Every structure is written in structure tokens, then in C-alpha cells.
């Protein structure tokens, strides 16, 4: 690995570690403050901001704010909605996008160049520029459900899931990965009489662990952290995800401790997930860079 060479004196090392630790403090401090504050009653929380106690679990520490937060808002519903929408979207996205990428890379069919070109071109369309007209689209879409045929998708799970199943980046990541797989293997399977779907499901997907991890992590972060779209399409609290649920904690004079407790509840599990899988997270971001 390429590394800057330098004199390895003790001083040199101390200086380097000092800088690394200082920068680390800048990144950790706000998050540490969030978690520690969630454990304190408001008067103490506010008083502690003037000294280092802000970052320590000292004083009158309890989980009262967490109890208060769950009483103030249907927090469990928000969490369920987020987890449900995110999980389902990630799973469907991995399937639909990898299937399309398989078709683009291993099969030959009329119009595939144009279709792939259009999909890649959508990468430069920021979601924010189509969010407003998308409201009109989902407001006019039909759906057949329990109560028969209805029109309009606002206030539902599907409006948060279906539009995000297929996206250019996920397809692109799978296409890049599939291109490096040996084509002879696919041809051999074809000669043996396997159907295309069998080759996709039994041969290609089991080889695709790394790209599945990358695509899943990127999609997970995107979906879980979404704000603008669920804000626009979920007026009913029954369908709202965690980021929109924040409304309940943002009144004029908020209970700061409860706000911090809610922020911790929706953030710490993701942080823990990241810390456990940090190599996969970091390499998934890195791979979007190298290949783009």
C-alpha cells in the first residue's frame, strides 16, 4: 500500500496521532453529545453544555426521556414503518435491478443498448427535480387492493416503496460486476439446458455477494434516511417513517431530552450496524468511486 514515508521518531508519531485524535473528536463530539443528553433531564442538559459534562453520562442519569418520547409520539409505529419500507425496497430493488443487469450483460436482444443508455442517463437527474411532478404521477395511479380498485397512492406503503425499486445506480453497479464474470460459464450452463432464470438464480447470484452487499448498503442508507418524499406523501401518521416523525419533537419549546432520545433511538441502531459492518460500508462507497 502506498504510504507517505517519514522519519519514525516518537515525536513524529505523537504529532500524527495527536492530529488524528483531534479530528476524531470533531466527528464524535456531536454524536456523543446527542446520546449523553438523551439521558439527562432538561435543566441539567442545558447547564451541562457549558462544560465537558455535556459529553459524559454524569448527574441525574435515567431513561425517562425515552419513556417520554414514546408517550409523546407513536414512535414504535414510525420505526416499524421505516424498517418495513426500507427492508422491502432493498429486497425488491436487489432482485429487480440485478435481473435487469443480468439481461443487459449476458443476453443479446433488440434495443438493449438504447434501454441501458436511457437507464444510465437517469443518473444525472437529481430526485429533487422530479419530486414535484412525481406527486401528480402517484396521485393518479390506480391500485387494486382490499377495497377494490382505487386511484391515488398518497398515504400508503406502496407510494414509499414502488418508485424506489429500480434505480440507475443499482443497475449500473450490477452491470459493472457481471461484466467481470466469465461468460464461458454462462454459455456452458446454457449448453447444459439451463433456463435463463436458473442461470441467474443458481449460478450468477451466488457469485455476487460483494455487489449485493454494496447495493444493499447504499440503498438502505438512502431509504432509511429519506425525508423529502415521505414528507410529501404521508399525511397520515400511520404510514410515516422515522424522519418525518421528527415533527412531533420540533415544537416551539421542545423537551430537549426527549428530542435527543428520539434522535438516539433512530440513529444508534444504524450506527451500531455500521460499526459491525464498517469494512463492508466503506468498501461499498469506495467501489462506487473506482468504477464511476
Amino acid at each position, binding site marked *: 500500500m502506498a504510504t507517505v*514515508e517519514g522519519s519514525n521518531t516518537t515525536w513524529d508519531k505523537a504529532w500524527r496521532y495527536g492530529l488524528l485524535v483531534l479530528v476524531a473528536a470533531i466527528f464524535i463530539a456531536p454524536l456523543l453529545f446527542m446520546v449523553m443528553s438523551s439521558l439527562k433531564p432538561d435543566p441539567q442538559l442545558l447547564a451541562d453544555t457549558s462544560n465537558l459534562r455535556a459529553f459524559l453520562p454524569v448527574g441525574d442519569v435515567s431513561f425517562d426521556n425515552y419513556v417520554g418520547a414514546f408517550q409523546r409520539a407513536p414512535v414504535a409505529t414510525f420505526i416499524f414503518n421505516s424498517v418495513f419500507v426500507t427492508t422491502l425496497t432493498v429486497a425488491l430493488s436487489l432482485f429487480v435491478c440485478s435481473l435487469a443487469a443480468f439481461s443487459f450483460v449476458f443476453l443479446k436482444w433488440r434495443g438493449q443498448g438504447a434501454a441501458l443508455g436511457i437507464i444510465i442517463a437517469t443518473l444525472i437527474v437529481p430526485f429533487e427535480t422530479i419530486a414535484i411532478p412525481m406527486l401528480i404521477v402517484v*396521485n393518479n395511479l390506480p391500485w387494486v387492493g382490499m377495497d377494490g380498485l382505487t386511484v391515488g397512492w398518497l398515504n400508503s406503503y406502496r407510494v414509499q416503496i414502488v418508485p424506489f425499486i429500480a434505480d440507475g445506480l443499482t443497475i449500473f453497479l450490477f452491470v459493472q460486476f457481471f461484466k467481470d464474470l466469465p461468460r464461458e460459464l454462462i454459455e456452458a450452463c446454457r449448453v447444459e439446458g439451463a433456463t435463463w432464470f436458473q442461470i441467474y438464480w443458481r449460478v450468477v447470484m451466488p457469485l455476487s455477494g460483494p455487489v449485493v452487499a454494496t447495493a444493499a448498503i447504499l440503498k438502505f442508507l438512502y431509504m432509511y434516511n429519506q425525508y423529502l418524499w415521505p414528507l410529501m406523501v404521508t399525511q397520515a401518521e400511520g404510514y410515516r417513517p422515522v424522519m418525518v416523525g421528527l415533527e412531533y419533537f420540533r415544537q416551539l419549546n421542545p423537551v430537549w431530552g426527549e428530542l435527543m432520545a428520539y434522535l438516539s433511538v433512530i440513529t444508534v441502531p444504524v450506527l451500531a450496524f455500521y460499526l459491525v459492518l464498517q469494512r463492508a460500508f466503506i468498501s461499498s462507497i469506495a467501489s462506487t468511486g473506482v468504477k464511476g
Partner: protein
Amino acid sequence: MAASRSRLLTSNRAGWAMAAPAFGLILLFIIVPFALAFGFSFTNQRLFSPNPTQWVGTANFEKLLGVAALTLEPERDASGAVALDDDGQPTYPRLRGYTRNNPDYPHLAGKQEWFSFGWGEDRVYVLASDVVFMKALRNTFLFVLVVAPLQGGLALLLALMVNQKLRGINFFRTVYFMPVVVSIVVVSLLWRFIYDGNNGLLNNVLSWLSFGAFTPVDWLGNPSTALPAIIAMSIWQAVGFHMVIWLAGLQSISPTLYEAANIEGASRLQTFRYVTWPGLRNTAVLVLIVITMQAFALFAQIDVMTKGGPLDSTQTMVFQAVERGYRKQDIAAGSVISVVLFLIVLTISLIQRHLTREKT
């Protein structure tokens, strides 16, 4: 061999069937809304309206982007000398006389003052049909122009730091990347507390560092500090993402190049200038494009922290698009902003692509 390969792999039906779900969804949820945005921007479409939608041509664009300049001479007294007001400043005719029902200035009708500057004795007034949008446009560009180089540069510094061969370096990589996995909405709420004018952490830290000499600032409540505060927070949240992309670029540079530079006796700076930087050129372009795209979409921070205020100092294009298109249910007005935003992003990505093509 080539013939048998293509025969084995050719399958129009299977090919279409497998690509159709993804392609259909992208068509319905990206291409159609995208086309609608263009269509709506020439109409008076609303989300729910009893009246039929009408074609209005380019009226929306004129209402959004109309800008005009008006040079006014100072008012003079009877002798012809410039009349001064109580503060000793020259006075100028009221703008209202030009922008309201003045048949001599039809192009100024309905426009309002955006800003003005002195030009000799005269004063030049720049008028805009939509002053709030002009401020949003200016703020968005300011945000992009500051964030792109600053965040890209800081990310490179961090990448160089965590690319050192030191024990435990992976811990620091993990920590620097941590804010990236936290939602920007959460970060914005958290930082509202940090930026608070009374009990804010930042004020307390600054006054502690300066032994009490620092006067507390209401960072988000002050028009001159609100946007810089949001810029600093946005960089804090996202810089780890680009650090990782730089790091991947750094690690793709062949170690033999560094060995050669070492043998030649190159200094650290020379090594960076002649080995590291040329190897990072493609990464640099990618990082800049990604940051620029993300920066133009600035919304959540504004919505959570300032709602565009104080005094429109943090208005942005996407915030205005949502404000009009969704909160005021004026789809046409939101779509026009979306189209303008898309054209800007497209132009910039074409320019960036053109620049990279020449260099490689």
C-alpha cells in the same frame, strides 16, 4: 466461436422479460415525471384544482427569471444641486413610480428591488420579477461554489491522514466516516442545538477557547452567519463519504511509483505533486461531480434548520420548489424551478465531462 456465442446468448423474449420490470419502473417513476416537469412548466397546473389546466407558454419562466436594471439619477433641488437627506445621503425617486402602472416602463411592471449599487452620482437598481427565487439561486450557487472545493479538499486531507501506515488507523477511518450513515435530518436537528445562541455548544466552546472573550452568536438567527453555519455542518456530515472515494483512489496508485520517487530523493511535497496528484485526476473529477450534484439538491438542512430565513439568507432552489410545488400546491411553479435546476446541473455535468475528456 463468435457466431455460436451470439446464438447461444441471443434471446429477445427472455432479455426483454428480465429487463422489463426495472425499465418499466424507471420509465414510470423517473422518465415520466421528468417529462411532466417540462410539460407542467408551460402550464398553470395545480395539485388539486377545479379549473382545467391551461397552457401559458413561457410565462412561468418570465415570472421566475425576469431581471431588469434601472439607473436613477439623484433628485435635485431647484438650483440643480443634489438634494441630500438628513443623513447626508443623496435621495432617489421612488421605485414604485416605475414598477406600478407606468406606461413608459412596461418591462418593469410588477418587478421588485433585488439589490442596488452606486454608479457615480447615479444609483443602479437591479429589479427582479421573483426576488425570493433570485436569492435562492444566489445562495444555491454560493453553497455549491464554497462546498465543492472545500469539502473535496478537506476530504483529500482526511484521506491522506488515514492512508498513513499507523497502528489503529482503521479506527480513525471508521470514526471519520461515521456521520455519513447518520441522516442529514438528524444531523440538522442536532446541530441546531450546537448553533443555539444561548446554550449552544459552539458558543461555549469558542468562549472557553478564548478565555471568555468571545461574544455569543445566534449562528442560525443571523443573516450573515446562517448560510456559513449550514455549509460547515453539511461538510461535517458528508466529508467522510468523499474521503473514502479519495482513499480508494490513493490506494490504486502503484507502490512502485512511490519507491521510485523515494530512490530519486523526492521530498514529501514533490512526491504528492508528481506521483500522488496525477494518479488522482479521475478521482478528483468524480468527487467534484458528486459533491456538486449533491450540493445543488440542498433541501433538508434548510427545511429543518431555517426554513429559508432569516431574511431569505438561506433560501435555496429545491427549498423554493418544494415550498411552491408542494406546500402551496402550485405544481407549475415548482416544476419551473425543477426544470431550471435540471438545466443548470446538466450544463455543469456536460462542462465537467468535456474538461475531463480533454485531459485524459
